[in-house]
C-alpha cells in the first residue's frame, strides 16, 4: 500500500473510471443483430415467468413438445420483471442471439414494434389457421399498430378493488365495492373509524410502483384521460378534477401511498386497495380475514394491463412459423385456463370460461370470477402511458407530486408539455 505512486493511482483511477463508464454504456451499438443463428427446431422462449409461473410454463412446454415431437422449447429466465426482459431483448438486438418467442408488456411492446423489431402476426396466424376471434377482443386489440397485431395476449390482468370484509362490516357498509369514487369518499369516514388510527381507509401504490396504472381509472371516472390518441390531455378539466380528488384523499388522511400496498392490506393495515388481478393468489393466501373483490369504481373505467407474447422480426421465416405455433399453443383455451388458475391472471380466450374445469374453478373462487366479469367493462389504456417512451414513469412522478400537495393544474400542464415533446422527438417521424 505504501508504494502506490501518483502514476499508479492515476492509472487506477482511469481504469476504474472507465469501468464505471463501461458499466453505464448501455448494451451495445445499434443495429448489428440479424437474428443470430438459432436452430429452427428449437424454440427459445424468453420469459420473466409472470406470477411465479415458471413451473406451469414448463408444464405447458412439456405438453407442446409431446404434441410436436420434432420441436424443442427452451425456457429462458430473461429477467425478474417485464422491463428486464425488454432490456435483455434490446441487448440481443444489438448483436446477440435472438429469442423465438418473448414476453412483452403493455408498456414495452410498442417501442419494439415502432422500430420494426417485432413481427406483425396477422399473416402468420392466418397461415397457421388460428381463429383470432376467440381471443378476448379488448386484450387482442391492445397490440394493434399500423393495422397489424404484434403480440398475443398471455399474462393479462386488470386492477381489482380488494376490500377487507370484516372492516366493511364494522363500518356498517354493504358487502360490495363503491359505485364510483364519490361514493367511496362518502364511505371514507366510516372506514377510517373502522380501520383505526395509524391505519388507512385506502392504500395505493406510489408513483414508482404503477400508481399511473390505477389512477387511469380515476381520471376516466371524472371524464378525463391521459391522452386522446397522441394528444396529451392531462390539463383537461376531468383529469385535473381527478388529480384534485386524489390530492384531497391524501390531505384528509384517507389514502396512503406505499410501494407494497398489498402487504399492508393483507396485514389488516388498510381497509381496501387497488391491485392487479395477478395479486389475487398472494393476497388470498396471506390475509387473515375474508377478502372481497369488486369492480373498480365507475362504469367501464377499468384499464387493461399485463403482458403478451411476441415474435422478433429478424429471425428466419421457418423460426417465425414455429414460434407462432408455440405462442398459439401457450395461449389456447386449455392452456390459458391452466396458466390463469395457477397465477391469478385472466383467461385470454373467450371459449376458456366455458371449459368445465374453469366453470367449476370460478364457482369455487368467486373472487377470481370478479376479474372475468369485469373484463367486458375494460378499456385500452391511453397512449400517453403505454405507447410514449417512459410514459408510466413520467405520469407516476407527476402523481407523486400531486399526492404531496403540489398544484395539480401546474403539474399536469408540465406533464402535457413533456409528453408532447417526447411524442414530437421520438414518435412522430416514425408513424
Amino acid at each position, binding site marked *: 500500500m505504501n508504494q502506490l505512486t501518483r502514476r499508479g493511482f492515476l492509472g487506477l483511477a482511469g481504469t476504474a473510471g472507465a469501468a464505471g463508464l463501461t458499466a453505464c454504456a*448501455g448494451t451495445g451499438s445499434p443495429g448489428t443483430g440479424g437474428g443470430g443463428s438459432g436452430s429452427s427446431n428449437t424454440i427459445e422462449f424468453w420469459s420473466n415467468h409472470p406470477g411465479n409461473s415458471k413451473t406451469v410454463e414448463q408444464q405447458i412446454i412439456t405438453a407442446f413438445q409431446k404434441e410436436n415431437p420434432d420441436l424443442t422449447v427452451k425456457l429462458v429466465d430473461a429477467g425478474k420483471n417485464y422491463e428486464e426482459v425488454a432490456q435483455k431483448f434490446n441487448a440481443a438486438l444489438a448483436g446477440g442471439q435472438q429469442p423465438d418467442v418473448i414476453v412483452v408488456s403493455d408498456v414495452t411492446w410498442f417501442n419494439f414494434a415502432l422500430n420494426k423489431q417485432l413481427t406483425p402476426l396477422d399473416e402468420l396466424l392466418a397461415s397457421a389457421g388460428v381463429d383470432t376471434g376467440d381471443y378476448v377482443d379488448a386484450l387482442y386489440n391492445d397490440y394493434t399498430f399500423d393495422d397489424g397485431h404484434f403480440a398475443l395476449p398471455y399474462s393479462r390482468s386488470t386492477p381489482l378493488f380488494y376490500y377487507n370484509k370484516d372492516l366493511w362490516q364494522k363500518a356498517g357498509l354493504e358487502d360490495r365495492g363503491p359505485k364510483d369514487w364519490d361514493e367511496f369518499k362518502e364511505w371514507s369516514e366510516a372506514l377510517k373509524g373502522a380501520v383505526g388510527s395509524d391505519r388507512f381507509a385506502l392504500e395505493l401504490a406510489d408513483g414508482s410502483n404503477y400508481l399511473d396504472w390505477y389512477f387511469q381509472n380515476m381520471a376516466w371516472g371524472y371524464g378525463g384521460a391521459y391522452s386522446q390518441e397522441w394528444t396529451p390531455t392531462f390539463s383537461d378539466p376531468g383529469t385535473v378534477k381527478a388529480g384534485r380528488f386524489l390530492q384531497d384523499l391524501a390531505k384528509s388522511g384517507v389514502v396512503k401511498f406505499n410501494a407494497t400496498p398489498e402487504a399492508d392490506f393483507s396485514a389488516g393495515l388498510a381497509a381496501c386497495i387497488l391491485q392487479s388481478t395477478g395479486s389475487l393468489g398472494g393476497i388470498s393466501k396471506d390475509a387473515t380475514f375474508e377478502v372481497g373483490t369488486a369492480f373498480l369504481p365507475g362504469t367501464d373505467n377499468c384499464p387493461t394491463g399485463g403482458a403478451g407474447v411476441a415474435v422478433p422480426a429478424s429471425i428466419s421465416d421457418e423460426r417465425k412459423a414455429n414460434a407462432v405455433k408455440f405462442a398459439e399453443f401457450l395461449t389456447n383455451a386449455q392452456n390459458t385456463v391452466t396458466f390463469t388458475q395457477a397465477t391469478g391472471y385472466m383467461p385470454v380466450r373467450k371459449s376458456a370460461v366455458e371449459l368445465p374445469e374453469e366453470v367449476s374453478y370460478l364457482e369455487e373462487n368467486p373472487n377470481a370470477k370478479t376479474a372475468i366479469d369485469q373484463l367486458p367493462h375494460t378499456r385500452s389504456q391511453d397512449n400517453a402511458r403505454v405507447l410514449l417512451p417512459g410514459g408510466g*414513469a413520467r405520469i407516476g412522478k407527476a402523481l407523486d407530486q400531486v399526492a404531496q400537495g403540489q398544484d395539480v393544474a401546474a403539474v399536469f400542464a408540465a406533464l402535457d408539455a413533456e409528453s408532447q415533446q417526447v411524442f414530437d422527438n421520438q414518435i412522430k417521424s416514425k408513424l
Partner: protein
Amino acid sequence: MQPTSLDTGAAQGERTGPPAPVGPPPRRSSGRAWEWSLAALLLAPNLVLLVVFTYRPLVDNIRLSFTDWNISAPVANPVGVANYVEWFGRADTRTVLGNTLIFTVATVGISMALGLGLAMLLDQRLRGRNLVRSAVFAPFVISGAAIGVAFQFVFDPSFGLVRDLLARIGVESPDFYQRSGWALFMVTFTYIWKNLGYTFVIYLAALQGRRADLDEAAEIDGASPWAHFRRVLLPQLRPTTFFLSITVLLSSVQVFDIINVMTRGGPVGNGTTTLVYQVYQETFVNQRAGYGATVATVMFLLLLIVTIVQVRVMDRGQRA
C-alpha cells in the same frame, strides 16, 4: 593483464571503422528483447481484455452520446452536441447532481470514518474479535439487491424495524418512501451499512502492517491518545486513506442495485435519482440510449476530474 581483442586490434592497426561490439553488450540487447517479449506476452491477455471490454465500449459510448439512438432502433442519427446542451439546460440536472453529491460525500466520509473506528477497535486484543470482524465484513459480500430488499422491510413505515424502534421512544416514523429527503437518507444509510466491511478490512490490514517501533516511541515519549492517533497513526494510514477515498468514491457514484430495488429513483420521480440511475432511466425506461450515453460521459468526466484533484492534493500533502 591480458589484452582485450580491442586492444590487440588497435595495436596492430588493422581496424578502420568503429570497434565491433564485444563482451556483455550483445547479451544485454538480446536479454532486453527477451524481457520485452516476455512482458508483452504476459500483459497481452489482460490488455486485450481491457481494450475489448473497457476502452472500446468507452469510446463507443462517447460516440453514441452525439446521437439520438433509441435503444431498440437499428440506426442512430447524429445530433451534434444537442444531448449535452439538453443535459446542462434541464431542470432535473441540478436535482440529480445534488443527489449524487450528497450520496457520495456521505457514503465516502461516513463509511471511511466508521471503518477506521471499527478497525482500531477490533485491532485490540478483545475476546470474540474474529467473530465480530467477520460480522462487520459480511454485508460487503452480500448482493446489493438482496440488501435492498431486506432494508425495504427495515424502513417500512407501517411495520418496519425502524418504526418499531422509534415507537419505543415515542417518535413517529418518517415516511421513508414518500419524502425525498428521507428516501435519500434511507438508501445512503443502506449503502454505508453494506460498504462498511470494505473500509474496515482495508484499514485493519493497514493497522496491522504499521510500524510498532513508532508506537513504542510515542508511548515512551508519553504521547496522549489523541496525539498518538493524529501524529503517529494517521500519517502512516495516509496512503490507505487515499486509496480508499478513490475506490469508495468510484463505487459510490456507481451504486445502482440498492436504489433500483428500494426506490426506483423516486419518490417524486427524482428523489433518489443519481447520475448512474439517470443513465439507466434514460436508456432503458425512456429508451433514449443516446442521451443516456451523454449522461454517462458527463459522469465519467466528472469522476476523472475529481480523481485528478484527489491525486494532486495527495501529492502535495506527501511533498509537504
